[in-house]
């Protein structure tokens, strides 16, 4: 523990010395920051300098090995680093699915060549990644995916369509699940493959949501030729890799949500005071007041539970289905929070565009509509409830 405190002091000194002044106070969510990649249009010199100094230090991917552009820190040290950055309100220098999804997957399942090719570029924010899992016919039943990859010499030829490929139009690479053996049982014929988005035959189209334009795209593959060396794990054994990655994704979603909940109670109280015209004292609408307490208590329980899980993991207990619990509870808490915000604002919550509505009101309404997706994306609540029933409660009966 003494070492950790030493590290904390050092980290604080180093960050103070190296972080551009303009970035202090700009820390927001886990995905608010520099996404990088070849298509990046970022021009702020401070943001680019911040990326460079942090990447040089290895602190964009603090726990990754130094040889792959990481910082070689222990989990505890990484947590301290995160705490110091939170304290200084410094944003992460690089964010994205490369760091939190495909990176950890390659560390576990990639060849040395794959690690060497991709990890340093991810850590430096040079490549941006997206995820190609879902298809129009394969949502919750992911394993029924139909995008085909046929071997052709040292390549695979890919044909098919992916949906919900977040930021695909801004990404350089996609990690995708493709069917390489259509005759095998459905989970046995899937391969996990990395595809450069510049490959001829790969195209994207943005998806419009009920909340307006979105980060989501459809991604199409028409005779896209991809070298076989980009397969991660064994051919036809991609399901194993895919599941491991889903685990990182869910934990991330849960943790991200619990982070998003900070300050929600104060925000809701402030809104209630504004719309009810009650600058202080007890809120005059007892039902809204009770709903705010419910939301606040729920957030508090979520935060405590996230912390409890973190502590268990630190004690070396294996991660179990906690991610499913956090996914369900976290996304529903998020929905409840926005539903409540809408109810508090009343008629002012109904705006789609101005005039008559503030930017905050319009954004809040979009957030509310967008939140309806949270219990669907990243593994629907129904799938998580199945997982809890069978893996945690043991409600699994072969032959029924």
């Amino acid at each position: 523990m003494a070492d950790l405190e030493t590290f904390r002091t050092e980290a604080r000194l180093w960050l103070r010395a190296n972080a551009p002044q303009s970035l202090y106070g700009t820390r927001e969510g886990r995905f608010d920051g520099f996404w990088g990649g070849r298509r990046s249009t970022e021009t702020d010199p401070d943001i680019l300098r911040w990326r460079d100094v942090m990447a040089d230090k290895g602190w964009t991917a603090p726990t990754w090995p130094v040889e792959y552009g990481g910082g070689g820190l222990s989990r505890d040290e990484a947590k301290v680093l995160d705490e110091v950055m939170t304290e200084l309100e410094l944003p992460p220098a690089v964010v994205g699915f490369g760091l939190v999804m495909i990176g950890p997957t390659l560390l576990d399942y990639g060849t040395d060549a794959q690690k060497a090719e991709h990890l340093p570029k991810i850590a430096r924010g040079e490549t941006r990644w997206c995820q190609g899992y879902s298809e129009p016919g394969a949502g919750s039943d992911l394993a029924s995916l139909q995008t085909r990859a046929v071997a052709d010499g040292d390549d695979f030829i890919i044909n098919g369509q992916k949906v919900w490929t977040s930021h695909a139009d801004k990404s350089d690479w996609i990690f995708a699940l493709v069917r390489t053996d259509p005759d095998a049982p459905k989970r046995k014929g899937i391969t996990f493959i990395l595809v450069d988005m510049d490959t001829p035959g790969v195209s994207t189209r943005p998806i419009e949501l009920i909340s307006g334009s979105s980060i989501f795209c459809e991604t199409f593959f028409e005779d896209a030729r991809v070298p076989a060396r980009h397969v991660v794990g064994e051919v036809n054994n991609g399901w194993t890799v895919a599941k491991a990655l889903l685990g990182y994704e869910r934990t991330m979603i849960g943790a991200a949500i619990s982070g998003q909940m900070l300050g929600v109670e104060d925000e809701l109280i402030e809104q209630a005071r504004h719309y009810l015209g009650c600058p202080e004292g007890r809120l005059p609408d007892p039902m809204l007041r009770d709903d705010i307490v419910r939301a606040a208590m729920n957030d508090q329980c979520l935060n405590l539970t996230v912390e409890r899980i973190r502590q268990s993991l630190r004690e070396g207990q294996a991660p179990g289905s906690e991610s499913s619990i956090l996914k369900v509870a976290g996304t529903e808490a998020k929905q409840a929070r926005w539903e409540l915000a809408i109810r508090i604002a009343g008629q002012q919550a109904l705006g789609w565009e101005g005039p008559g509505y503030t930017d905050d009101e319009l954004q809040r309404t979009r957030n509310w509509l967008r939140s309806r997706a949270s219990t669907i994306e990243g593994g629907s609540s129904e799938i998580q409830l199945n997982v809890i029933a069978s893996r945690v409660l043991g409600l699994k009966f072969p032959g029924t």
Partner: protein
Amino acid sequence: MQLILNEEQAALAKTATDFARKRSPVARMRALRDSRDEIGFSKELWKEMAELGWTAVHIPEEHGGIGLGFFELSLILEAAGRTLMPEPFTSTLLLGANLLIASDDAHSARWLPEVCTGDALLALAWDERGARNRANRCATRAVAVDGGFRISGCKESVLDAHTADRIFVSARTGGQDSDPDGITVFSVDPAAAGLTIERQTRIDHRNCARVLFEDVRVSTDDVVGTLDSGLSLLEGTLDRATAGTAAELFGTTDEAFEIAVAYLKERKQFGVPIGSFQALQHRASRLFIELKLAESAVIAAAKAVDDAPDNVPAQVSLAKARISDAAIHVCNEAVQFHGGVGITDEYDIGLYLKRARVAELSFGDAAHHRDRWATLKGY
């Protein structure tokens, strides 16, 4: 109280639903939205419906109406709700016409016959920032000047103000802040000097506007009903508008439920229709039960307007509270049942969610009406 449809009513409901499905499918509302249509609905279609008598069912014969009843109007509203029709039912028939039916004065004689023929569209400007569905919270003021008044204030969420041939507005002619007394309703020419209509876009893409009054001049003849006693006129009108909105919302919600159930049958995952999963079956069954109970309340409220005026406030609160809750549950679940496509703009179910939630939050949400119910019953 008769709670089931007689033959004539069943025929009217069927005709209206067929008309809505055929002449105004959801794609039409979508096209009006995407083209940012200036009117936002079709005056021709409105006229056509007027020819079928639908703009006149609840208007008394002495004012050119058919004088059937409010319940009949509620059947038409339910049909309109089913396909998200954007026509000005609420503004003209529920708010404007009901106000004039109740005032039963020169203004009624002037406007109601044209409402019946589909030639006049009306708007009622009553809501204000912070009013939270209480018509007595009226800060707009009408100051007496020689031979009339000058109205100043800002009215929010005025449905269809941009196409109204006449705007009725509530303004304070006496009293302070939230006083029940001292409110007067005026009839105003939308083209009057000092009157500005700022069109707004809401999530359901139906038409509403903010209406600003800056020293708008009206004469004493423009008073609708009685000076200083406009609140009861307004509240009676709002009750009827709420009953009608409940019927429309029932149509929207019931249709969303049917769309969801159809999707449960059609969409396959794991090799079977997702509707074969018992967890989803039970959730669908519970929604069905909730919807059936709410439907009874919606019918009873419309019937009360015709047959039991004293019960209107309580029955309206019952109907709006129950259908609002059901609408939230049904629409949220309907989107969830759809999975990913449910939250895309491409599928219709999201449009139902948005329209339903606007109706749910309008004319008082469920919590508002539960509070009112208890107040009405003295506890």
